[in-house]
């Protein structure tokens, strides 16, 4: 089990009701974190539509997570 800080943005934050929380999870990759927190961020999106960052660096879905990481979960972006 790892202690991970998860930050939610936009629609994810609205669904979770918090912008950030620290969770203890059984997760190897950021994709695992995304799946484990589905009931928090409420996304029905395939994760391929979303983006993720670890400690302020954009990450791939199969990037490994470590104890103490800060994971940023980004819903589909729509700038401009």
């Amino acid at each position, binding site marked *: 089990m790892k202690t991970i800080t998860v930050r939610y*943005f*936009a629609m994810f934050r609205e669904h979770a009701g918090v912008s950030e929380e620290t969770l203890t999870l059984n997760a190897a990759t950021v994709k695992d974190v995304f799946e484990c927190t589905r009931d928090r961020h409420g996304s029905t999106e395939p994760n391929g539509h979303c*983006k993720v960052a670890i400690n*302020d660096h954009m990450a791939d879905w199969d990037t490994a997570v470590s104890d103490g990481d800060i994971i*940023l979960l980004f819903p589909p*972006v*729509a*700038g*401009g």
Partner: protein
Amino acid sequence: MGILSCCFPQLRAVDVIEVTDSVIDTAALQRSLKNPAAGGYCAFEGWVRNENEGHVVERLEYEAYEPLVIVEGEKVLAEARALFPFLDARCVHRVGMLELGECAVWIGVASAHRDEAFKACRFIIDKIKVRLPIWKKEHYANGDSGWVNCERCAAHGIAE
């Protein structure tokens, strides 16, 4: 150089992307791209419009995660410069609540000739829309609101 440094006050070496919660001063931004070697200038602005997919839109709310907007935005500008060598480019994206007609994003590119300016400007806005951590929520005339899905998602469908 006296005259040049007067007319062209802000010759810069790096391309810049910024996030702001204030009205974008497009005239000042444009002046900052003035360069005696520039023969062409292309700008794009995204404006809040009154309709989207059949909904009457009254306001748009933008949210951004600024640290990674800057990092990813600088990558986009560097990619654009490599593909379409220009002199200078700048981009500003606004966040917060915007009214109809307000400018949500401004991109300006100055180059020796027009081809690079047009192509780089288009490249930059296309990438900004699908790569930068920015989200927009539409507020409709009927009181509802909704987050806008990204262009790429909409184009490729939910099955992707």
